[in-house]
Structures are given as C-alpha cells and as structure tokens.
C-alpha cells in the first residue's frame, strides 16, 4: 500500500493547476451556470488549449494521437479539472465514443472520427434514453430499418446533453423488434445535420438548457455507420458507459465547495462570518470533509484497479453513490451556512458567493439520478459486488 502520489503525478497536478491559474477568470465559478453562446465559445476555446497541451485525449494510445497516459494520471487530470470547475472537456468524444471505436469500430470509422475528436474539432452527443426508457434502457423503441445501404430511423431520444451543440450522435436503435429486450439493439453514428432530425430544448430545474429531446423522422443513415455487429449494440453501447468511470468529478466538486466555504466563513467581511466560531459548523465541516475524503479514496481505488487490470465494476457503483451523495450534502450545507443568502439566485443584488451554491445544488439533483440512479447502483453493489441473489418471483411482502 502507498497512500501518496508519485513525484511525477504531483508534478503533473501542479502543471494543470498552474495552467488553470493562467487561463481561468478570477472568481471562476464554473461554466455550469452559463448555458449561453458565450459559455459554449469558452468551452471551445478551452478545448483548443487542452489539445495544444496534448491533454484532451492523453489517455488514448499514441497511434490515435494520445499519450498512453496511465489511469492514475487520467484521474488526476479529471480531479483537478473538476476541482477548478474548468470547461473544455469532451466526455462524449474522448471518454465514451473514442475507446469504443478503438474496441469495436472498423478501420474506416477510426480514421474518420478519432482524429477529429483528438483535435477537438467535433462535438458528439449520446442518444440512449427515451421518454419511456430511462433506467430501463433495454426497452428502447426507436427503430432503425435497413433499406438498401441505409438505415431509416424513426423515434425519439431524450435527455440528450449538448444535443443542440453536437455535430454527431452515437445512438442505440432497435434493429430487430422480434428479439427480446437486449438482443435487438444496434449502435449507430449519426450526423446531426441529417434531414429529419429535430432538436427540441429541455430546460432543467436550474434554468439551464443542457438537455434536448431529439426527434427522428425517417432519418436516413449510411449502413457503414453501424459500429460493431448488427444487433450487438447492447454490448458495444454498455462498454461506452463503463469506460473508466472513477466518479472523481463529484468528490472533486465536493472538495472544491467545502474549501470555498472554509475560506468564505474565515473572511471577516462575509456577513455570515460568525459561522467560523460556531462549534456546530466546525463539527459539520469536519464531518463533511471526512466524507469527501472517503468518497475520493473510493475513486482512486477504482482508478488503481483499472491500472492493475482488475475489473472495477461494482467499485465504480460505490464511488458513484458515495461521490454524488456527499456532493449534494456539501452543497446543502453551503446553503445552510449562507442562511437567508442561500435563497438568492445568480445575478441577484446582495448575493453571496455569486449565488452559485443554490444553482449548484439544483444542478446536483441530477447526479444521483443520471447514469443509473443510485438505487440501481446499490442493486449492482449488492448483486454483483456482494453476490446476493435476485428475487426469484413475485414477493409476498405483507
């Protein structure tokens, strides 16, 4: 066991930190509360900076433009970026689609897409969820019917993050309606400018437009855009979901928030600075910072397992549950410390900490729901991790 980072790792963390000191605006609170064109432009600009430093796809093999960097380095990068709430990352292209194409794509698909992702030139989005298929993904109904050299897609996807900015979508479609749930599904790559695609915005409860509903009306996609085998999309698509998910971004966000709160109440100009000598606040911060560290170690455990070639399936569920729960708790606590100021919205006169904690708390609501609700993650932990059996038949519970 070794509970410290190597000199090289610490050095890399410092580099990222210095880079962010340089390029982030003062008092930067994260792009999370900017859903406008400015924030998109900033995101693009940051992505270019990351490309310049060879960080955007550092985890990829050298042959595809990456640096073959270790899982530990990748998590440190993700940790530091999330800790500073830095924009510019591209989860869909670099972390989800890229590795999947390396594993399942054909030579032509790799040539066509990997370079563009590595250069930060193309924005991908993910077409998985449907209005009636949320947690239960295998029940998707969007159809793709082969017609000559093309698939014809009809249906609707929902919760499509960045759908309104994306150039391309990778999507799950039902290609064999007669097969049981998982078996009739394929993964397709779709140009978002194709005729018949309509993108409708969905504004979230934090008043931000991240999501979209995407309607497919006789959308024709070349057969060559099929990734992997026909009707093998479930396996291909789930690989995307499982790839290198350490969950560090939640622990990092929680760490950032709690440190910000400590600085804030230690500032005598803060109207709630009396909190710093309130024993209950002291105790609560100690408690939360312990939980944050506990969640953070779970993430690095997942990363370590990944580096050792061990399968981190239920461990990733653990880090997701722990990270998202503590992230919400820390934000709740921030609102508690802010007292009445916690009720002020970004942009309000007299707002403290720019009203960001309220906005972040609203946004964090999704973290325990998306990518598999925490309830489902706990099922996974119990069944895959602990080996507990599934229900055999209808339970008579009362």
């Amino acid at each position, binding site marked *: 066991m070794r509970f410290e980072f190597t000199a090289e790792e610490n050095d890399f963390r410092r580099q990222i930190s210095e880079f962010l000191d340089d390029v982030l605006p003062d008092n930067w609170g994260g792009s999370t509360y900017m859903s406008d064109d400015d924030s998109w432009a900033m995101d693009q600009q940051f992505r270019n900076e990351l490309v310049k430093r060879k960080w955007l796809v550092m985890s990829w093999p050298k042959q595809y433009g990456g640096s073959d960097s270790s899982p530990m380095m990748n998590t440190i990068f993700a940790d530091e970026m999330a800790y500073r709430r830095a924009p510019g990352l591209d989860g869909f292209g670099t972390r989800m689609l890229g590795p999947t194409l390396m594993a399942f794509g054909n030579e032509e698909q790799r040539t066509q897409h990997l370079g563009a992702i590595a250069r930060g030139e193309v924005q991908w989005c993910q077409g998985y*969820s449907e209005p*009636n*298929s*949320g*947690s*239960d993904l295998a*029940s998707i109904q969007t159809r793709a019917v082969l017609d000559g050299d093309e698939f014809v897609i009809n249906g609707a996807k*929902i*919760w499509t993050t960045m759908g309104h900015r994306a150039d391309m979508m990778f999507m799950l479609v039902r290609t064999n309606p007669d097969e049981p749930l998982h078996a009739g599904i394929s993964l397709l790559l779709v140009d978002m400018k194709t005729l018949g695609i309509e993108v409708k915005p*969905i*504004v*979230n*409860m934090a*008043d931000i437009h991240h*999501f979209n509903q995407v309607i497919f009306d006789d959308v024709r996609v070349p057969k060559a855009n099929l990734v992997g085998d026909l009707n093998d999309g479930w396996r291909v698509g789930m690989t995307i979901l499982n790839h290198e998910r350490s969950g560090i971004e939640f622990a990092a966000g929680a760490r950032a928030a709690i440190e910000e709160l400590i600085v804030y109440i230690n500032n005598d100009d803060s*109207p*709630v600075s*009396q909190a710093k000598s309130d024993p*209950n606040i002291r105790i609560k911060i100690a408690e939360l910072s312990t939980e944050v560290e506990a969640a953070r170690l779970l993430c690095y455990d997942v990363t370590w397992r990944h580096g050792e070639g061990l399968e981190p399936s239920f461990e990733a569920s653990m880090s997701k549950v722990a990270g998202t729960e503590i992230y*919400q708790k820390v934000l709740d606590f921030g*609102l*508690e410390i802010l*007292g*009445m*100021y*916690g*009720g*002020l*919205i970004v*942009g*309000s*006169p*007299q*707002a403290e900490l720019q*009203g960001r904690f*309220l906005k972040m708390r*609203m946004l964090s*609501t*999704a973290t*325990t*729901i*998306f990518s598999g*609700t*925490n*309830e489902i993650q*706990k099922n996974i932990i119990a069944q895959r991790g602990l080996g507990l059996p599934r229900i055999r038949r209808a339970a008579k*519970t009362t």
Partner: protein
Amino acid sequence: MDFGLTETQELIRNSAREFLADRSDSSVVRAVANGDTEALASLWKDVVELGWPALTIAKEHGGAGLSFSDLAVLLTELGASLAPTPIVESAITSRIIERYGSDALKSDLLPQAAEGDVLITPAILERDVSWEADSATMAATRTNNGLVITGEKRFVSFAEQATHVLTLVRTDGGEPALVVVPIWKSTGVDQTPLEHVSGVPVSSLTFNEVEVSEANIVATGDEAIAATDELVAAGAVARATQLAGLGRAVVEATVDYTANREQFGQAVGSFQAVQHHLAEMAIAAKQVNHLVHSAAWSFSQDGYSVERAAQAKIAASEKISALCWTAHQCHGAIGFTWEHDLHLYTRRALAWKTDYGDSAFHKSKLATSLGL
C-alpha cells in the same frame, strides 16, 4: 387531543382548496415568479375578498376573531398550492400589533389590515441575517415627535406590495424599539428587489432619515424584544405550517407519479426502495403536520409555547426540504426539468426552510428552553 377538524376548520379547508385549485395553479405561481405583479395583485384582491387577512384579527377590530389553529388550516392549503400571497406576513404583524400595540394603533391599523387596505410586513433581518432580536442594529434617533430611522433591513417579503413594515430599531440609548413604518407615505425609504428562490417578491430596504411618529411605536425595551421573539415564533410556525401543506402535496404528487410510471415492466412505485422512500416521506409529512398544528394550538391571546414553536420549525425545515429532494429522486429525470412543477415546491421549501429561523436557530432556542 383531537386530530380532527372543527366544522369551521372544514369550511376553511374546503373553500381554500376550491379557491386555490382555481386561482393558484402552477401557471399563477410561475407568473408571479416571473415578476408578474398584476397576477399577484389580482390574487391578493380575491384573497381579501375571502376575508383571509381578517381571519385572526379580533372582532372588535373588524376581524373574524378565529384562532391561530384555524389559521393553520388555511396555511396548510396555502402551502400545498404555493399560493404567492402575503397572508403570513399580514397575520403575524396583526397579531403582534394586537398583543403589544397601543389602543390607538390597534384601532387605526387592524381594521384596515382586516380589509386589506393596508399590508404590514415584517422587516427584521439586517446584513448578518440573524433572527435574534438582540442583534438588531438599525439606528433610530429620538425626536420630540417620535423617531428618525437610518439603516438597512434585508429580505423583506412582499415589501413592494406592503404599505407598512413592522421593524426593529435601536435608539440612541441602545434601547430596542419595535415600530410600524408606513413606507408608502414615508420619504427616505429605498427598495432593492432581490432575485429569490421563493418565487415571491423579496426586497432589501434602506432607510435614510425616515421619520416615524411616536404613535407608531409598538413596544420598547424588553417588551420590544419579547414582541419580536413572538413575531419570529409566529412566523416560524406559519412557515412550518405552509411547509406541512407543501410536503403533503409533494407526497401525493410522488405517489401519483410512481404508481403510474413504468420501468422494467413494473410501476416504479412497486419497487421496495421507492416504497420505502415514500413511506419515510409520508411519515415525515404526517409528523410535521401534527407538530405544526400542535404549535399553532399553543398560540392563544395569552402567549404561545416556545418549545412547540421551535419543534414545529425544526421538523418542518429539515424534513420537508429533505422530502422534496427524495421526491426528485423518485421522479427521476422528468422531475429535473423546468417544465415539471416539482422544482417549484423544492424552491419554495428551500426558502421557507430558512425563513423565520432555520433549524439550527430553533434548536438553540429549544435547548435553552429545555434547561440546557
């Protein structure tokens, strides 16, 4: 002990439900949150028509003379509907004036408050947002005619609609005074509207040498502190009662959604994890309901129970906002959208959770009261 409604209370509840379903659906709540002051004014006009501001004002001052317990029945419905209307502000300021004000002040203001001709809202908080009466610092200089006030009060609900504020100042000698300021007629009062999670108007007010006549002083010294403590306690119980109604509404909505939404070939609400979420939410909502009505019952013309008021707000503040977050968890993605009404409840719960003292404030009060 009687957990059932009296006939009067049933009447209040039924008429409130009927009225609010019609006049305060989510489109009205959203309109007011978007700054539609006409929608707010129109709702207030109807509410006055129904006699709600008069409910707990004594008959001799033109009110209906009902109890705080009766008011609580109305407040649960206001909470359940998120109705954006200043009944709490009106009711608690009327109570304090009735209990502590001079006969002249009562005869002047209470009949007008009952008729909705004046609206008096509390202005207690300052920059340090403490609900402790002792911490008020806004300066008032004594003159022959009364007081001249200079300073700032923050987080004043419905200040834009109010004709008066009931505010706490500290005079030259350091003595506190609780005073009614007719802000509609005063010069030197400036408003800064805040953007607030509650979705109702909240402002900060600055007072620049604002003159207030002697007659408008409700109480001074220890009595001003006691009156302010009571104002905060009444506000706390009122907000807790609205939270109880809000919680009930969120439980109902979540039961409804999860019983019908299907995933994995099952109603989501048939999964044990979801059932246990909802069972715990239902327990919390019922507990808060009982605690707030117990606290409201304790408010008589002779005073109130400090313990019950604190317990009501502690439980309501903690349990109802937590219940809203669990409701989001049960709703999944759909409850995360702006379009779905769930976040309107969550936002209001966040606002009310802190208003008139958060749980930490009331726990400290309660501990003292328990002899610690």
